[in-house]
């Protein structure tokens, strides 16, 4: 059985078993090492990817589920204009420390803004509450998303 899905805008076929973790397959078969493994139990959000527009922990997704889905990882997202806005806003407040939560956090930022281009601080905090960061205390990340919302007018 082959599993067909769209990964970062490209049609791909995986030979993985239906019960394998999407996280593992993205990292090994597709070399998407920007998808980080922090806990493998759906608690930390480091392995966040966007499937059909929704933020999910890829460690909790079996390969069988992604048949015919659209999957976006940081490797695809980094080529977008929206990423460029988040890149600049994160840099302006030094919201990246150890970086291990960052790719997931950036994809969470995208999902917050895609749903609501002008989120309140509380909505931003809620939107990243599934992504743990042990370094920053979150303030800089919240600021970065809020700056991106202002600077990225029209993109979201």
């Amino acid at each position: 059985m082959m599993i067909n899905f769209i990964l970062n805008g490209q049609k791909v076929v995986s030979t993985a078993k239906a019960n394998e973790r999407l996280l593992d397959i993205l990292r090994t078969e597709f070399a998407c090492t920007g998808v980080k493994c922090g806990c493998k139990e759906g608690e930390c959000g480091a392995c966040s990817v966007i499937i059909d527009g929704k933020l999910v922990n890829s460690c909790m997704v079996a390969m069988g589920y992604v048949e015919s889905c659209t999957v976006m990882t940081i490797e695809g997202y980094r080529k977008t204009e929206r990423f460029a806005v988040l890149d600049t806003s994160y840099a302006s407040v030094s919201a990246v420390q150890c970086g291990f939560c960052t790719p997931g956090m950036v994809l969470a930022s995208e999902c917050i803004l895609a749903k609501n281009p002008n989120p309140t601080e509380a909505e931003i905090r809620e939107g990243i509450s599934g992504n743990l960061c042990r370094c920053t205390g979150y303030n800089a990340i919240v600021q970065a998303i809020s700056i991106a919302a202002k600077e990225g007018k029209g993109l979201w």
Partner: protein
Amino acid sequence: MENISGSIKKKDHEAKINGSALYVDDHLMDGMLYGRMLHSAKAKARITKIILPELPEGYLIVDKNDVTGVNRVAIIIHDTPVYAEDTVEYVGEPILMVVGPDDQVVETILHKIVVVYEEKIPVLDMLTSDTVFFDYNYTKGDMDKALAEADRVFIETFQTGYQEQAYLETQGLIAYPQDGRMTVRGSMQCPYYVHSAVANAIGCEGKDVQIIQDVTGGGFGGKEAFPSILACQVAVAAKKANKPVKVIFDRREDMEFTSKRHPSLSTYKVAIKNGEITGMDIDVLFNSGAYTTLSAVVLQRGLICANGVYRIDNLRVGGRAVKTNTVPCGAYRGFGAPQTFFAVEMIMDHIAKEMGLDSLELKEKYMVKQGDSTSTSGKYHFHVPLPEMIQRIDELTDYRAKRKQYQQQIGRYRKGIGLSMFFHGCGFTGSGERDIIKAVAKIRKNPDNTVEILASNADIGQGLKTTFCKIVADTLGISYDRVYIDNPDTDRVPDSGPTVASRSLMTVGGLLQRAAEKLKKEWQEGKEQVIEEHFVEPDFVIPFNLKDFSGDAYPTYSWSVNAIEVEVDTLTATTKILGAWGIFDVGVPIDMNIVMGQMEGGFLQGIGYASMEQMDYNAKGIIRNNSFSDYIIPTAVDVPNLVAEIMNNPYTHGPYGAKGAGELPLVGAAPAYVEAMENALGANLNKVPFTPEDVMKILQGVNT
């Protein structure tokens, strides 16, 4: 704000945000094998037999018999075995490693191994320990006299629990033999610590070992000593297999079996005469776990901070780090200080209540100032900005008024506010920097006039690559883009010491500033030039003597005042944090964003320690809170109103006036939080973490 403090795009920003930064688990090598550890399932036992399944071709078992050097990990005292010998001393002690080309097959083999144990009765409770690893005592003034003449003596015991570093990237390393040498690379804070440990375990000379730090996903102390242990195990495996071996811990393995903050019990006897505090007699107990690792130095720092920021003329401080059959504790941001600062802040609060004063009033009366003597009869050589900090906190929070307003509340929701004041001694305790570390740092100017920084300190997220480069670029008067630093590789960088103790920027940054000043004078266009600088202790330091804990334990101190405001729901026993404010003096910030990131992040870790991070073992010595489902750390919604402010207080002997920063913000959150809970609940509290379950107990006590 000083010019240097203006923020700049971090050197590591791009690769980390676009996902191209390679952490150890992202590296693949030809013929690489995967290793997984078999950990002891018993807290204390003799291993009588290990029954191995038949191994498929290409798979091997690595254990104590494969250690070609000494089967001990070189930390301070060489007592941690690389692989267990005949006995195991805690649940999780590494017995052997299964190694092979397919990770899942390795896992299957691991589950088929049967270890036959002859169980012994473990010592789990530190109060029943019969082995004292370290025992220190020091005195100042005449404590016996203070007690004899006291008209009142307050006695109380305070308890603090484990805290897990919970860095997002778990422990992981790769070892590979090459041309008769052994290379180990991966997630770590201290490449030269790993270097000595690996040479000792595989039995070779230092020149035959190379250690490379990879991009590291957080450390907080958890990657100070532990990577030395794992490196020995992986290097032994790579040597036996004669192939690269990678070991990446899974989260549960990391939480249960790697070092964490020492649980503590501190008993304070405070002598009072005529309404004045005349002395403190302090006894501190730290649970070291099964091996010594860093307990000696963690305990030293805890004891030195035991009287807090207060001028106490008569002091007797004793402390012991004792052995139990539990996971070895080690370094964690704050390094022994959060435990004793919690205790001293709480006892001051409780004494104040008894005297009919507000705790801040009592604390202000005893607060040290410049020129005062430290606990170890050294000196606070520089300005102590506590009064300005308290004033600022009061402006921000209306602390004094709220504190009164929140007494005697009734109704379902009850508010409280608490305050703590504290310092962090910058750099190594005592003369470690001068006598043991002897840091060396270099800068090299290339013929194309770019400048490379060569130091063994690791950027683990704290922004060291950026701040180091800023110091060198600014001193040389060249653009920041022309200065660069790679992850440390012991083949290329001198030993500028470990990335610990809030020392990297203050101490090694200082060496780099001196080197850059020299290079500026000697600058020759288009030529390669190398400048090397060695650590020199500042002249003002009163030499520290560890025998009697006398002299300057630290050259200088970073200072802080925290306030936390809470609202307790007495129906559900849950607590909402309405605000957390921290004023921090870390000298001149070398980069304001970076320093703010350290302060906010550390402060939130401290609030986690105070309020929710609960970890304990069961009757068999097994840690039960071994995942992010059971060991809860703060998310973005837990403390939405967290405010950090910097108070600029330049340190004359630090680069651009900077001093230690990384650890300070964690140290005082716990007492501020628990004092706020006391204010809300109207009860004296004496433990952290103070969880909803603890609130429930207090509420039930009140009700019955």
